[in-house]
């Protein structure tokens, strides 16, 4: 090969390779995944509509690979029963993944309490999940920065970097975090980040037959769900911690903690 040919061909190779190689530019993964400042995800839960069927829990566990036979869950439903003689009972057997098929209350340690239907003053269900707080205490305490908040307002965990110290689990006032029984790292609700970033609904919203769960972009004032949050009386859980939760509730009772 002549020197001239060699140089010519080298230029062609370099020019040709630079096109696909330019795709390998180093970028912040957060930027690629979701850097859309117009989006800030929020959740709306209507306790009047929830019937405790547990479809959301099932759908979540299926979608996110949380074993059904493990007593931890990313989302759960609580049952509140107030009797006329001013007693309060709360339970959430197995996070309600099989739905509330029994009327008796689970008191733990294998004890149950049957309540006379005539004696029930009020009763309701409350679905719960990670609140994706504006100022999350869990990301603050992570010693290695393995859990973080995305620009579009979702709190995530990096499974490849989490050391499993459990500090974030301790710091969450809502009990939304746990150790994944298989991965052995901290785990929590991700708002089905892999779905919402592709324009789909979360698994639980999708599975709820009564519309008790809804999601919205709280920055979009034309979004019907955002309008509910703006125009109706909604509450958040444990606001005294200053975490600014992004999961809003309709019909929240003060006893719900």
């Amino acid at each position: 090969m002549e020197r001239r040919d060699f140089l010519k061909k080298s230029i062609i190779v370099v020019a040709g390779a630079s096109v696909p190689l330019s795709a390998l530019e180093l970028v912040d993964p957060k930027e690629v995944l979701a850097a859309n400042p117009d989006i800030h995800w929020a959740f709306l839960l209507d306790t009047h509509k929830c019937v405790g069927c547990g479809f959301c829990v099932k759908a979540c566990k299926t979608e996110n690979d949380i074993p059904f036979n493990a007593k931890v869950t990313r989302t759960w439903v609580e049952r509140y029963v107030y009797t006329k003689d001013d007693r309060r009972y709360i339970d959430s057997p197995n996070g309600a993944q099989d739905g509330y098929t029994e009327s008796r209350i689970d008191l733990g340690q294998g004890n149950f309490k049957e309540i006379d239907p005539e004696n029930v003053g009020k009763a309701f269900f409350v679905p719960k999940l990670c609140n994706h707080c504006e100022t999350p205490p869990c990301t603050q305490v992570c010693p290695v920065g393995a859990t973080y908040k995305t620009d579009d307002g979702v709190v995530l965990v990096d499974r490849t970097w989490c050391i499993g110290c459990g500090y974030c689990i301790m710091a969450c006032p809502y009990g939304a975090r746990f150790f994944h029984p298989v991965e052995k790292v901290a785990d929590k609700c991700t708002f089905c980040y892999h779905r919402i970033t592709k324009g789909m609904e979360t698994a639980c919203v999708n599975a709820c037959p009564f519309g008790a769960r809804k999601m919205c972009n709280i920055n979009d004032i034309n979004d019907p769900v955002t309008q509910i949050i703006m125009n109706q009386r909604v509450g958040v859980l444990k606001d005294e911690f200053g975490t600014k939760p992004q999961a809003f509730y309709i019909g929240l009772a003060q006893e719900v903690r």
Partner: protein
Amino acid sequence: MVEQVAQMVVHGEAWTVKELFVLPNEYIYWSIQIVMYPFMTGLVAGAFVLSSLYHVFHVEKLKEIAKFSLVFSFALLPVAMMPLMLHLQQPFRGINVMMTPHFTSAIAAFGIVFMTYSCIVGTEIWFVYRQYFVSTALDLRAKQNRSLVDSFRLTLFTALTLGAWDISKEALETDHKACSKMAAIGIPVACFLHGYAGFIFGSVKANALWMTPLMPVIFICSAIVSGIALCILCYVVTQEIRKFMARRHLARWADDPNAPTVEQLEGAKQEEVEMTSRYLVYFMVAAITLEILDLIFRGYTQVKSWDILREVILERDFNKIFILQYGFGNALPFFMMLLPGRNVRRTTIACALVLFGVFMMRWNVVIGGQAFSLSFAGFMHYHMPFIPHDAETFKEGFFGALTVMVTPFVLFYFINKVTPAFHKEKDCH
């Protein structure tokens, strides 16, 4: 037909029993190893502070025990990290704390504070023992027909001198000054090492029992108490062993004409214990005052969490807190040390009780803080695994804790061979 699938045990489920309404994801995630962690770092910090009393404030009477506690605190150092490693779900990623420290987290500072502190203790020991290293190396070098062990010791001690062979009076004077400086820097760092262990708990706003700004101060005071108590206890025990060996001529040093006699050992012991226990009482008063203040404040202000805290503190954990911790761990040893006619034996028993009391305090904070649900409507009970049936129940069970407990003594045995804590000659400060 639904197929029955075996239950998968999640972390914490093996030792947690839930009562009434507890959130589905709540378990006692921080178990016995997290009780051991502040207990062990407390011992490290306390032992160091005791040794500094001599090096910085020149309390001459503490000279003997100061050297012992400095070497012992060095043996305790690696053990402060052990419970954390045994507790991590991903222990091989523990190094990530050093690689990407996330400074809004209290734990992130651990690597840096711990390394700084290790360097300070290491440097101080080097200055204290440099003269001993040099003279031992010179003696060995002068020796004819060195055995294999002697050759190894020669290499080791030559390396330990770090090339600084000058043991003139001026050089030793400089050593002494440097040593005092290191000890002076060491005190705040030791307090920081432990104070921030308290901060780890005190800053968890989700936990009603832990969240108090007093937590770091309470932890520092009880750390010093436990460190001093352990040093007195170990000092007395090792002196007893030395006495026994001197009497029976069991050890090599016992045949040395310069070796301390049984009477000398006994005399030294009484003097040191007398003096040290006085400091123990001072720090105990501070620790108990702060703990009681915290309790009274909670009861008096009666914020939302008080209902459930009252039930845990005054009913469910009453025996552990008021009988074991305050009764046997604080009040009883306190009176044992204050009542007239105190002797070494009584002080030693009191020290053992103090150590137990501090351990119970750590237990009641760590386990007690997880004894109630975030819902304030249920309780969790901790059953420490005794007989391990898998790696997890070993690590976070009785035997895991025992491993952590025993390790410093094993380490001390070996470290003592290189930097003898009871070296009497004028070879070290």
